[in-house]
């Protein structure tokens, strides 16, 4: 039974308490498994957005596809599902995670541009390849970001 009226600890007890806190954070970081299905869902959203280039008409009359907003909403829903599946809402994810998220945005933009170029060249079928690349890159980078957030929690 725990004593609810704690007195000031000794130096050794205080050090042990601080060690326990580090051990708890490490235990959480070790116990959490990256939700691979939901990371792949992020990849699916990226692939869907890049594939939107196939229905665009590059040139003077180009109008950006509206799939971007839908993809953003779905990505936010997936992020919410990740929180609920794992049971942790991170306060900060660490520089590596933010780098991975920036890399997702930049690579998807690059792949979308390449896709528009392919469509303009009459190679619409090749958008399948850029979409697959977006899926693979985003799934991998989302996993990198999540593992980085867990490491950040361990080191805090």
């Amino acid at each position: 039974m725990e004593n609810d009226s704690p007195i000031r600890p000794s130096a050794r007890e205080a050090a042990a308490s601080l060690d326990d806190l580090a051990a708890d954070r490490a235990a959480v970081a070790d116990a959490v498994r990256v939700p691979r299905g939901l990371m792949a869902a992020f990849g699916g959203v990226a692939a869907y957005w890049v594939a939107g280039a196939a229905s665009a008409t590059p040139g003077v009359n180009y109008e950006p596809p509206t799939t971007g907003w839908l993809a953003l909403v779905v990505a936010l829903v997936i992020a919410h599902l990740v929180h609920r599946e794992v049971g942790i809402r991170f306060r900060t994810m660490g520089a590596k995670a933010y780098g991975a998220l920036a890399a997702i945005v930049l690579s998807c933009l690059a792949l979308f541009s390449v896709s528009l170029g392919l469509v303009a060249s009459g190679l619409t079928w090749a958008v399948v390849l850029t979409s697959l690349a977006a899926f693979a890159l985003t799934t991998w980078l989302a996993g990198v970001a999540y593992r980085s957030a867990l490491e950040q929690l361990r080191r805090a």
Partner: protein
Amino acid sequence: MPEARFDEVIHAPVRLRICGLLRRVDGMDFGVLRDTLSVTDATLSKHLKTLTDAGYVTLKKSASLARSDARRMTWVGLTADGRSVFDAHILALREIAGSVE
């Protein structure tokens, strides 16, 4: 930078560990906390009530994916006051532990 201040509410071992787990996250599920600390639901609830009454912790319920019934998951998070009191308490512990570090 907060000043070192020993807080008797937080210092009880389970409560200190609860705050330690919550300090770097926005929220943690009740079940994750319980499993990490290896305590019963009743024990965790008792300590969360003490921390909530002190204004250090907030509890928020939301629907659970894992449950098909009406039960909900409970998110636990530190308040701004809880964070500053915990930080001051950790500084106090570090000062006390200084001689053995």
